[in-house]
């Protein structure tokens, strides 16, 4: 075994520089002698030991309910509370009679079993603490600066190799102590590196992972690598690294002995990049042209071309709506007309992605959002905003400066929810753990969480009323509509109606309240007193993550320092969070994975690569297209999926393309596209009309979208945008998805749609083809009819109710009138009871002139490649044995849609 690297895997909590003092030997040795006199330190020894013994774990006293009335803070960072709990269980007179000793020694019954051996160093450590009258953590206790772990990187080469880690804590007061026996060791993958609770690692299967060392607030991850082949270092095959990305990827692969696959074929590349960038398949002509093109920069040119297509804008708008949480169900009641808020959200982002507005500017539009544009009076605001709803209104919501709906969501109202949502979206961090206890895998404590929360206290988000200084105007505008006592939903509906009529209505606002201002007030005795005025709930101080508490009382909008910190080049997470997500879009896994779980215990698989992309993204002024180009033009992105013996099992070091199930919207769009006629097929490159990537919101109501895709999108796992997790979108396979593609009436009837491919083949060959299955437009019409039908049904119901009332009154005249009214509406309703839709297809047994051409075509439209000779032969045989040729082609198309090659991007 050799120890690699000169860098130190350390966590720096402060910038203090430590003199190179002697290291105190480990507590296990110091407390072993029976006559040990040392008093242990509460923070440095007692609490870590309780963690090591498992006392403050969640299954035991770390549970929020505690166990046996004894509760410790989970993972122990609440020193005051823990001390209080422990102090109630010590016997200062007879220390050995303390519950905290008797229980774990099992001298008296302990549900958690025996945790301590009598006379052990652990026992003596705790005993000495009690003997010294259980000292608590001093108020001015030195902070932990860092934990040094040696070796800083572990490289195994053969079975049976092992290494003992050593951890040294360095405190701000200069003390250094060997804490190997007091810290916790865990492995991120025990198949590669199994680590004992004492920090002893034994080599297991080849691969790379990290072991994690936790102590106090520090979390240190130590890489453990065991190459999967002997092709490492100088023995690594010569591999071209045309870009910086390739250089950094291959540099890691060289350590691992993982060899890259070859370059993808033109067809493979074109299909992959088209689906990845635009969510649509290349046309057959495009494939032919691309393959025939001999220029050396054709891939780069294609990438540029795809980044300009509407599909790119729609897909990245969708992704940004995922990350920022555009959910119709969370935006209930935010606009007077239902579902408009999520549409506006989508449009606002879409307009910016289309113009390639810098990422940090888009973020600023969300983070700093207020409803009113700069300089707008309340009246102007209502006029302009009303205009965005009016038919042919001159204002567009997308033209407004900011996008306030981000703050209006139901799940973004509590301050803690704002912290969690914000950290998820813009920092890629799951800070929720720190809401209730120290984050087990990161440096964040409850104090950090609460300090950060301050920045979110200034915004009133629910959009239910005008800014306080405009409430009078709001009332005046409302008075015009004579809405009387209407409130809540009824008022909103009424205003919605007025808005649809083209009226200007009063709107609620998202606004920011400045913190309390210090003003001087003259008292009766003539003295000047300073008092705070106004400010509502807005905090006057807050703490950025990883920084000290700051005074924010001087800001008009306390989000300003937050935004400045976010986009600052020094921000450790903002750029990384985004580049990592973009990378994950192209490689199935992030460099940090899961991509939204950046924490100290979950380090990047390739830190220099993540750093390079983040630095470049910042240097490009957050130019999203720069980032896409940087990744897509790398050889790494353009590798084949075909594995070699060294990279078959590797999916986190980017040595080949990783097959991945296509995202829900793209899977649906791709099915629709593949079986469309040529004209409709080609439109996918120029328009997003009717595509699932153009559906704005998530939530129940989007399911009524006219694309008819709701069931498919649900089972294929479109993001629900509910829980601040990238996993709200699912790309895992499921049985229902497979059943859907194989046998769902919707897919089967689309095969025979009149604007479909089969219909086109029939037409070209003079075969009669009648399809009664609906096209997308037909479905949209049906949806509209459905609404009219509902209305007619409602009229029937109310007529029925009237009749019932009339019958009760026993007034013959009334009954007669009600009966005739009912008959009338029933008649109207009957019109909607159309005969059940059939999807029968009749085709005469005409002859298709060139069946091979049709089969080639089917392959090109689904798999973006021509069939191999043997595939073509199989397909031709199938057609020949079918009841007619068209039916044969239907079967071939069905089979291609159901291949793994189709539903997987590779």
């Amino acid at each position, binding site marked *: 075994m050799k120890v690699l690297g000169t860098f130190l895997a350390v966590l720096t909590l402060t910038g203090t520089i430590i003199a190179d003092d002697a290291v105190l030997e480990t507590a296990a040795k110091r407390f072993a002698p029976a006559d040990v006199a040392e008093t242990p330190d509460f923070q440095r020894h007692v609490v870590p030991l309780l963690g090591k013994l498992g006392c403050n774990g969640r299954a035991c006293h770390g549970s929020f309910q505690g166990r046996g009335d004894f509760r410790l803070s989970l993972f122990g960072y609440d020193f005051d509370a823990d001390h209080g709990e422990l102090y109630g269980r010590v016997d200062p007179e007879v220390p050995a009679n303390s519950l905290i000793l008797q229980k774990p020694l099992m001298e008296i019954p302990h549900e958690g079993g025996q945790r301590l051996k009598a006379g052990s160093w652990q026992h003596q450590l705790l005993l000495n603490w009690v003997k010294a009258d259980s000292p608590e953590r001093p108020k001015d206790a030195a902070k932990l600066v860092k934990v040094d772990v040696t070796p800083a990187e572990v490289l195994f080469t053969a079975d049976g190799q092992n290494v003992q880690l050593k951890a040294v804590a360095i405190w701000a007061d200069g003390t250094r102590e060997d804490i190997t026996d007091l810290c916790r060791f865990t492995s991120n993958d025990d198949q590669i590196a199994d680590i004992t609770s004492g920090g002893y690692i034994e080599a297991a299967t080849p691969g*790379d992972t990290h072991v994690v060392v936790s102590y106090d607030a520090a979390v240190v991850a130590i890489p453990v690598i065991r190459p999967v082949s002997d092709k490492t270092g100088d023995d690594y095959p010569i591999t071209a690294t045309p870009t910086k990305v390739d250089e950094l990827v291959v540099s890691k692969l060289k350590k691992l002995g993982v060899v890259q696959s070859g370059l993808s074929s033109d067809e493979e590349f074109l299909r992959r990049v088209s689906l990845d960038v635009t969510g649509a398949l290349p046309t057959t002509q495009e494939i032919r042209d691309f393959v025939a093109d001999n220029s050396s920069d054709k891939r780069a040119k294609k990438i540029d071309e795809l980044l300009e297509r509407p599909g790119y804008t729609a897909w990245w708008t969708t992704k940004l709506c995922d990350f920022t949480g555009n959910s119709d169900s969370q935006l209930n009641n935010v606009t007077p007309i239902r579902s408009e808020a999520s549409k506006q959200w989508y449009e606002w982002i879409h307009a910016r992605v289309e113009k390639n507005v810098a990422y940090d500017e888009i973020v600023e539009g969300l983070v700093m959002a207020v409803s009113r544009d700069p300089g707008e009076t309340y009246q102007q605001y209502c006029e302009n905003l009303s205009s965005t709803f009016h038919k042919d209104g001159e204002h567009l919501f997308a033209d407004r400066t900011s996008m306030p709906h981000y703050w209006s969501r139901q799940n973004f109202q509590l301050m803690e929810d704002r912290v969690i949502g914000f950290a998820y979206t813009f920092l890629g961090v*799951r800070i929720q753990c720190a809401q209730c206890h120290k984050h087990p895998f990161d440096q964040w404590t409850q104090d950090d969480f609460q300090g950060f929360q301050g920045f979110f206290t200034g915004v009133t988000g629910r959009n239910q009323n005008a800014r306080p200084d405009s409430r009078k105007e709001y009332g005046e505008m409302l008075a015009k509509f004579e809405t009387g006592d209407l409130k809540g939903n009824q008022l909103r509906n009424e205003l919605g109606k007025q808005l649809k009529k083209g009226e200007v209505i009063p709107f609620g606002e998202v606004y920011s309240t400045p913190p309390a201002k210090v003003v001087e007030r003259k008292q009766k005795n003539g003295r000047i007193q300073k008092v705070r005025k106004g400010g509502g709930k807005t905090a006057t101080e807050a703490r950025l993550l990883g920084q000290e508490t700051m005074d924010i009382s001087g800001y008009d909008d306390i989000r300003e320092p937050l935004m400045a910190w976010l986009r600052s080049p020094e921000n450790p997470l903002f750029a990384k969070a985004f580049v990592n997500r973009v990378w994950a879009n192209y490689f199935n896994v992030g460099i940090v994975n899961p991509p939204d*779980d950046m924490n100290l215990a979950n380090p990047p698989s390739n830190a220099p690569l993540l750093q390079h992309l983040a630095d470049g993204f910042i240097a490009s002024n957050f130019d999203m297209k720069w980032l896409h180009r940087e990744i897509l033009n790398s050889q790494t992105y353009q590798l084949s999926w075909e594995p070699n013996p060294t990279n078959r099992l590797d*999916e986190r070091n980017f040595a080949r393309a990783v097959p991945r199930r296509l995202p829900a919207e793209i899977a649906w769009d791709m099915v629709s596209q593949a079986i469309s006629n040529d004209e409709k097929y080609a439109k996918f490159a120029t328009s997003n009309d009717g595509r699932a990537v153009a559906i704005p919101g998530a939530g129940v109501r989007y399911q009524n979208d006219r694309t008819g895709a709701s069931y498919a999108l649900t089972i294929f796992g479109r993001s629900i945008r509910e829980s601040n997790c990238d996993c709200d979108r699912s790309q895992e*396979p499921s049985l229902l998805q497979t059943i859907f593609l*194989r046998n769902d009436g919707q897919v089967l009837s689309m095969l025979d749609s009149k604007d479909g491919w089969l219909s086109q083949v029939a037409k070209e060959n003079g075969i009669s083809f009648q399809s009664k299955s609906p096209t997308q437009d037909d479905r949209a019409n049906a949806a509209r009819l459905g609404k009219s039908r509902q209305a007619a049904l409602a009229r029937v119901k109310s007529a029925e109710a009237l009749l019932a*009332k009339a019958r009760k009154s026993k007034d013959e005249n009334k009954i007669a009138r009600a009966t005739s009214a009912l008959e009338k509406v029933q008649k109207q309703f009957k019109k909607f009871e159309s005969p059940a839709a059939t999807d029968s297809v009749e085709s005469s047994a005409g002859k298709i002139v060139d069946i091979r051409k049709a089969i080639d075509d089917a392959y090109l439209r689904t798999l973006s490649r021509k069939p191999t000779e043997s595939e073509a032969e199989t397909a031709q045989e199938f057609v020949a044995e079918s009841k007619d040729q068209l039916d044969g082609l239907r079967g071939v198309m069905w*089979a291609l849609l159901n291949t793994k090659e189709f539903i997987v991007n590779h």
Partner: protein
Amino acid sequence: MAFSRTCDGVGRRDFLRAGVAGGAGLTLANYMQMAQADQLQKGAKAKSAIFINLNGGPSHMDTFDMKPDAPDEYRGEFSPIQTNVPGIYISEHLPKLAQVMDKFCILRGVSHSVAAHALGTEYVNCGNRPLPSLEFPGYGAVVSKELSGDPELPKFVAIPRSQQRPGYLGVRYAPMDTSATPAIGTPFRVRGMSLGSGLTVEDVEKRNNLLTKLDRTFGEFESENQLLDGLGQFGQQAHAMITSPKSREAFDISKESKEFAEPFGKSGLGASCLLGLRLVEAGVRFVTVTNGGWDTHRENWDALQTKQLPPLDEALSALFAGLEARGLLESTVVYVTGEFGRTPKINKERNGRDHYPRNMFMLMAGGGVKGGQVLGESDDKGAMPKNEGFSPDDVAASFYHALGINHEKEYNTTTGRPVMIVRNGNVIPGLFA
């Protein structure tokens, strides 16, 4: 395999392997075995469940929790009738159910505070008060995860669709929607299960053969890649399901004898209950039936008397009797509920009752539930539970209990938070025989 970190420090095995690990990774096959390993509590009787959702909120005062002695402005137009269990009275418009009272249990004084349809429905479909930041899995999703199933059948079927979402458990626990309500006497087409028009099983077999021959691009790599391996396995299972006579017959209620089908009546609810029974008999684990029209703000009594109660009376009584006749009542737990009750005080203006979650009724039967009893009680005006009452969480805990699922079992949400299946419920004492 990859471990994704959870909030409480417990490593969670990811479904898809992301690591470079050689050796035996967690394959989809053994993952599915793990997921299917039934770790049931002893003594549970139910193997499957039918959940009937009465959308809109049925009035408790006019059905199963009548207050004949309440003042006029509360009482309502209907009279109670004696059931076949002495001392238990229900609405006169439920005469058939009155005759099978011994087979089911009425829960009165169930109470919560969510008066909106969508949220209330979500609540009673998962047993956890809805949170804006987390989507809880519905009962069917949990059951799909906890109980093994017949490979030729879907585990969880929704007729026609369900409010029970897979939530944080993930899409593989989503229900198969029939997308339509069946009707007695007409062929029923089920989304994904019925063959396309003009297709025979032979056609499907032929296409599948073609697919098998063409779907070879990834070759040997398939067995090493979880996604491809999974897609392959799902393909085989889907094909088996689509072509198996078992599944298609289970969905075909026209296969049922006339004598057996008749008591279910001609309504969509009746046909749905009959379908539910057939599915459970075939081996489907969880069926939801959704029935609407209960939001009776206007003309409450007229709507109940003419439209809502007769089909409910027929469908439920036939379901309970039918399950018993087939020997399925012991092994099938049935849970009937709306999202809330309706205001005890009559809305005179509209002659109706409005949303009211403070007091509602629920029904349970089968799966070891002791029939012929009323648990819980509401006050004289049907306005609040007398004593403590029950919460939807308690009923959920009991429902899981009947199925042998420990409702206090913890899952990790997708972001790694540990959450119990039912966070605040207690199994209702006396519910089980």
